Every structure is written in structure tokens, then in C-alpha cells.
């Protein structure tokens, strides 16, 4: 059992050398990733150039939600984002090769890409969050410090579960294409902004039905000491990250059923 991580390390090394052998492409890839990370935040800044407030929140307040989302999404993407490729593997039947190896399916898929560029995104997300927390004028208490850690862990788990659950769709729906993006990248977009700007059934489905409202919005309200314009009590903010445990359990179940359901392409 002592050498269990070794095959995984070999996979990772193989990937790294394969990608780094195309040096110019790799360099552009790294550079663009840094820019891409900043774009989400830049978009928010551009919007606040035009307006003074979004849904009654100032830039400093909104940045707490932006920072929580940016870090949680980037860290989840770093750990499990590669699972998006499962649709490619199912589509081409290459998942067979993954299944016959005496290794876990999930870890193998996750090691099909090297994590340096995604690590850079997480670092940037953490920086944005730190700046946002420092400049939002938060009245720090022990409970709030704990909430930051809880919210980050919950957010990472939440987005990670969304990645796994949406990727599993490919087992049933071979050409699922972009449908997962609606919930992964769409979910990130949703949690970046205060949820009171959305309305009607759309907000109910995304914020409460799927639980995206509990990733950044409610924890941010509790950190900022603001009451919810939508009327939920204050303690919800402190409990919100717990929702991700439920989501993770559902995602794990869907993934297991999906892998069992997999049939090769038959070609």
C-alpha cells in the first residue's frame, strides 16, 4: 500500500511533459489563464463604473461575494474541474481505457491535466477575497472569522459537487455538450452578484432549489452584518455553507450510478 500514489504521479508527470513539449502554446496558455482569471473581477469593476450600486450593495460589499465566489470556484476547478472532460471520454469510448486500469476513475480523470494554471487562478481568487474582506469594513468577531473559513470550505465543496454532478450527465446523455456549463460557469455568474437582483422563479430555482444562494450571498450578508432584503433571518448566513454537504452527497450518488450506467461506444 506504500506506493499507492505512484501510478498517479506517473500519470501527472506524463501529462506535464506532454503539454510542456509544445512550449509556445504552453506559455500563451499560462499567460491567458492569468488574464482570464482577472476578467471576471474586471467585469464587475466595469459594471460598477456605470452604476453606484447593484441591488443596493456598494462595490466594496459586492466584492465580498465576488471574492468568495472567485476563490471557491477556482479551488474547486483546480481539484475536480477536469471532470468536464468525461463527456469527451464517454463520447469517444476512451473511458474504457480508464476503467480497465486498477486505479480510481475520478482521480485518473482529474490527473489528465496539470494544475499549475488553475492554481494561479486560486491564488488570484484568494487575493481578491483578502482585499475585499479588508476593505469592506467588516466588524470582526470570532464567529465571523470562523464563518470565512466555513464559507470557503463550503463553497469549494459546493462547486466541486456541481462539476461532478453535471459531468455525470454525459453517462446518460452522450452529446450533453455545453449543458453542464449552465450550472458550473452559470452558477459562478449567479453567485458573483447579490441574488436580490434576480427575480421570480429564476431566483427561486437557482438560489434555493439548487442552493447557489448559500454559496456567497448569505455568508456575505452575515459577514457584512446586513439584513437580507429577501427576508431570511440572520442565522442563515452562518448555517448556509452546510448546504454544500447535502449537494456533495447527491453529486457522489449521481456519479456512482453514472459510472455503473456507462456502456462503451460499441465500436
Amino acid at each position, binding site marked *: 500500500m506504500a506506493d499507492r500514489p505512484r501510478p498517479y504521479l506517473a500519470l501527472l508527470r506524463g501529462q506535464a511533459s506532454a*503539454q510542456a513539449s*509544445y512550449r*509556445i*502554446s*504552453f*506559455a*500563451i*496558455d*499560462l*499567460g*491567458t*489563464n492569468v*488574464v*482570464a482569471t482577472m*476578467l471576471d473581477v*474586471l*467585469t464587475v469593476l*466595469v*459594471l460598477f*463604473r*456605470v*452604476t*453606484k*450600486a*447593484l*441591488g443596493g450593495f456598494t462595490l466594496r460589499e459586492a466584492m465580498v461575494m465576488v471574492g468568495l465566489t472567485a476563490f471557491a470556484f477556482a479551488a474547486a476547478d483546480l481539484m475536480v474541474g477536469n471532470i468536464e472532460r468525461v463527456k469527451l471520454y464517454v463520447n469517444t469510448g476512451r473511458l474504457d481505457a480508464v476503467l480497465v486500469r486498477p486505479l480510481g476513475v475520478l482521480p485518473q480523470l482529474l490527473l489528465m491535466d496539470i494544475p499549475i494554471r488553475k492554481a494561479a487562478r486560486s491564488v488570484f481568487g484568494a487575493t481578491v477575497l483578502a482585499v475585499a474582506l479588508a476593505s469592506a469594513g467588516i466588524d470582526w468577531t470570532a464567529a465571523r472569522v470562523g464563518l470565512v473559513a466555513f464559507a470557503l470550505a463550503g463553497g469549494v465543496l459546493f462547486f466541486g459537487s456541481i462539476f461532478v454532478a453535471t459531468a455525470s450527465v454525459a453517462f446518460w*446523455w*452522450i*452529446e*450533453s*455538450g*455545453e*449543458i453542464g*456549463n*449552465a*450550472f458550473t460557469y*452559470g452558477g459562478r*455568474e*449567479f453567485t458573483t*452578484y447579490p441574488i436580490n*437582483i*434576480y*427575480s421570480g422563479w*429564476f431566483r427561486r430555482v437557482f438560489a434555493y432549489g439548487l442552493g447557489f444562494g448559500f454559496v456567497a450571498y448569505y455568508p456575505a450578508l452575515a459577514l457584512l452584518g446586513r439584513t437580507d432584503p429577501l427576508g431570511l433571518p440572520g442565522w442563515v448566513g452562518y448555517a448556509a455553507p452546510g448546504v454544500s454537504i447535502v449537494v456533495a452527497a447527491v453529486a457522489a450518488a449521481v456519479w456512482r450510478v453514472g459510472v455503473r450506467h456507462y456502456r462503451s461506444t460499441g465500436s
Partner: protein
Amino acid sequence: MGSVNATTPPSTHRNIVPAFRTFAAITGSGFRRYSTYRQATVAGAFTNTVFGFLRTYVLLAVAAGTATGLAGGYDREQLATFVWAGQGLLAVVALWGSTELADRIRTGDVASDLLRPVHPVTMYLAADLGRAWHAVLTRFVPPVLTGLLFFDVYLPRQWFTGPLFVVSAALAVMLCFACRYLVNSVAYWLTDIRGPMLAWLVGSGVLGGLFFPLRFLPEQFMVALWVATPFPSMLQTPLDVLVERDPPALRCGIVALQAMWVMLLLACCAVVQRRAERRLVIQGG
């Protein structure tokens, strides 16, 4: 439509009709090809629609937070039209098109494209127009109808807006095709185009006006972007034409600018293709 590879002599007959028929046949095949990807079409339309809701709410909140109720000179209805038509147009121009050509270059399959008696740029353009027409029916209509159903949208008031939008959208399709062709062609030199492709995905989205209307940016920067890069001409221009953001003369002006970019970049494609074929021979591939 002359041949370009070393194995076939240049075509001698000057009759345009066969060339036109070939073009139409390839366009038809492009349409038919995409009409077989039914699940992916539904999935794509669904995702565009979800993003339509997200972006509309965000931009409406931006407009609600300003003193005048206008954001970047657009009123609430214009913003809704901008977002929903943009979500549809995104698929029509295929801003995030496939890396098919690059994959064919990497694997060497592109050699069979070069043996055909049609110029590769012409052939790929024809197929892409077929794909775009399929997208108009399956990917443009659903988000636009959703927008109409759930939001107060701006409907064009001047008669010439319709035709001008069609021209502008068609130019945007060709322009976006040319850009993707150039990005894919990088594979002749680098083999792997992961980096350039990502740069294109990121750049085209934000500089094209997908994430926010470019009018939100500082005026001088926006004008420079519009004149000096092809990106705004791929989404922002047709959308601004549709929501009648500017006086008629300026709208015609930005469409003319689009036409200029189309000619310039298609010419670039032809030049790059010629150089790439020499490169391919040198590689011995």
C-alpha cells in the same frame, strides 16, 4: 475558384456557375451535418438561455442603480434585447467554434483537404455558412423567443433596421469564421493550439461585447478597440444595429467597418493558407 496545391493544375474554365454550385453543395452539407447533432443543439440552446437570464438580470440591476436609468446609453428594454439577441448570435457566429481544423492539421488529415479541387478557405467558409444557417433556426430563435416571453424587450422601430441587422449578422459570421480559421491555422506552426485557442476564447468574449456592452468602457478605449481590432465587429456591432443605439449614419458606418474587417481577414486567411502549405511540405507531413 482556383486550385492551390501542387498536384492539380489551375482550373482553366472561367465559368462561375459550377463554382457556385460547389459552394452551395458544401453549404448544404454543413447544414445537414449540424442538423444531426440534435442533443448538442438542445444543450447549447438551453445553456445560452440560462446565461440570457443571468446577464439580463445583472444588466437591468446596473441600469436600476444609475441616476438616469440608462446604462451606457441603453435603456432597460434595449439592454434586454442586447442580451437575448446576443445569446442567440453567439451561437450563430460560433464565437466558441470547434478546433476541428487544428485537429486535422495535427493528425495530418488536413492533407486530404488540400487535395480537393476547392480552395480550403472557400471550402471551410461554405461549410461554416451552412452551420450558421442551421444555428439561426435552432440556436438564435429559442433564446430570442424566451427573452420576448419573460422580459420587456426593445423592438426595432425603423424599417431598415431589419435588413441592416441581417447584413451585419452575416458579416459577423464571416468575420468570426476568418478569425477562427487563423487561430486554427496556428497549428501548422505550433501543432498544439491550446494556448492560442484559450487566448481567442477569452479575448473574443470580453472584447466582442458578450460579457458587457462595450459602451460601458471609457469612450476613447472603446473607439480604439472598435477601429483597431475585429472583436467588436463580431457581436457588438450587429447588436447595436438591432437595438438602434446610434443615429442611422453611424450604424451604417460601423457595418461598413465590419465589411472592411471581413475582407481584410479573409485575405489574411488566404495568405496564411499559402504559407502554411509551404510549411507543411517542408515538414514532410
